[in-house]
């Protein structure tokens, strides 16, 4: 928790130079992928009280005029059609995958490819968290990247990061990628 907190604040400090900078980040993925756990980890909140998301959760971290607005939208099948309504003016898409749920790799890949085709997300950088790496049955990030055909996404910056949202491991690395590769371009 402390480490992640440091990570998040160090990301914010790196953004200090920009005046009135605001990033809109949308967090998507299938149900049970760990989106809300990741969000709470970023906000340094208790991850033991997480409930399946109905609608959405939003966390806004403010520091020296810098805002990170992270929108976590529910991943149940019935509410996926609403994802599109949250995509306007998005600066970064974070897509969370349950690395242990092999049976739904195809489903999550389809959902991701449909998102990538959205007009509102043209050219928007993509960060994929291969979550639940703490489980023995989790597939490595490289295998997931291959399965998703990430190399075909040539129209945008993308990165896949292995992580365990529940333990916080790997989350900071993903956020560092955002700071180093995305924010610099916005300056």
């Amino acid at each position, binding site marked *: 928790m402390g480490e992640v907190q440091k990570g998040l604040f160090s990301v914010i400090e790196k953004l200090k130079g920009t005046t009135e900078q605001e990033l809109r980040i949308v967090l998507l993925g299938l*149900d*049970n992928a760990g989106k809300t756990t990741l969000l709470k980890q970023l906000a340094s909140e208790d991850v*033991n*009280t*997480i*409930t*399946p998301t*109905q609608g959405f959760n939003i966390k806004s971290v403010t520091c020296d005029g810098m805002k990170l607005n992270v929108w976590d939208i529910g991943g*149940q*099948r*019935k*509410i996926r059609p609403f994802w599109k309504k949250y995509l306007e003016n998005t600066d970064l898409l974070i897509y969370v995958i349950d690395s*242990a*749920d*092999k*049976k739904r790799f*195809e*489903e999550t890949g389809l959902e991701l490819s449909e998102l990538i085709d959205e007009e509102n997300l043209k050219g928007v950088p993509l960060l994929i968290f291969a979550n*639940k790496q*703490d*489980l*023995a*049955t989790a597939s490595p990030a490289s295998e997931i990247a291959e399965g998703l055909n990430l190399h075909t996404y040539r129209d945008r910056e993308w990165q896949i990061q292995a992580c365990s949202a*529940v333990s916080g491991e790997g989350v900071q690395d993903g956020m560092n990628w955002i700071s180093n590769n995305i924010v610099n371009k916005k300056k």
Partner: protein
Amino acid sequence: MAALGVEMNVAQDDGETNTAVKVPESVLRRDQARLEEAERRRDVKQSQTVTEEKSDFFTSTFNAEKTQLEEMISSCNDREKAAKTLEEATVKFQQLQKFLNDSVRFLTQYEIRQAQESLQKLQSSITDKREEILPKKKFAFRSRNTSKQQQPTPIQQQTADKPAPGSVGTVVVDAADQCGFSNVDNQVLVRQAEEIQQRDVLLSHLTHCKVRLYGCPSTLHIKNIRSCEIMCGPVSSSVFVDQCTDSTLVFPCQQLRTHNTTATRVYLHVTSRAIIEDCQGVSFAPFTWTYPGILDHFKVAGLSPDRNNWTEVDDFNWLAAGTPSPNWTVIPESERICSWDFVGTAAEQS
């Protein structure tokens, strides 16, 4: 007066004559118009009839093919024949897809949507079955290897035959990482704490089984289950239930997610919330099972024994606030099971 009378008679005669002359023409015209209209109506009806015939034809053909495919997929359990059957199923599926595409012109939007949903489900079934039966085969074997592969088959069959129905036995899932049971009928299945040890547990394609998991999994997946009784120790994160019918599920967990499930009772201890989606006839009651060492397992799993939100169930198919979802109920106290069968008791704690 007489002269007037005579004149009137003459006029009448003239009128009659005129009428007689006019009637045939107007009648003929009307007849023609009527005939033309009748022809138009017939044409319209014929075209509609053709459309209806095609629509009915599509529906019956599509459903017949779909049923065949479903039977192929569900009957596909022999690993030896599985690859071939799945290949045939895939070809059949593609043909069905093409059939739908060709028929889109004259189908209604509703029919198209229904057919697409059916195709999606079929594709999922094929994928699930392939992953289940042929989990790690990425390359086709050559004919030489095929002959070698065939030899071990009889041994496997003997192994499968050994456990008698109803006897206490343990069937091991092939994958080394995985912990759980798959493709078992009418058995008692037990896992002890040291076998589970915070691992990811998968239960899939079980029928008429009693499952006892005397330990705390990190996560638990329950898929394609029919007429089973599944009891598990505390699960650290979420339990994921999909395609479960006519069963009883008993476990503590942090979250519960239930999909495509019917006629199932859940004796639940959940520290956050339960959700259901595409479910009917699901009923809930508080967790009532116990075994030696379960309190320690609550601690290992990080769950609070004092916090149970079993009545807080969200139905994602039911968005009306204030009106309870008809898809889930609370099991009346008089109908709740409080003492459970003792089967394959938990190993004594050291």
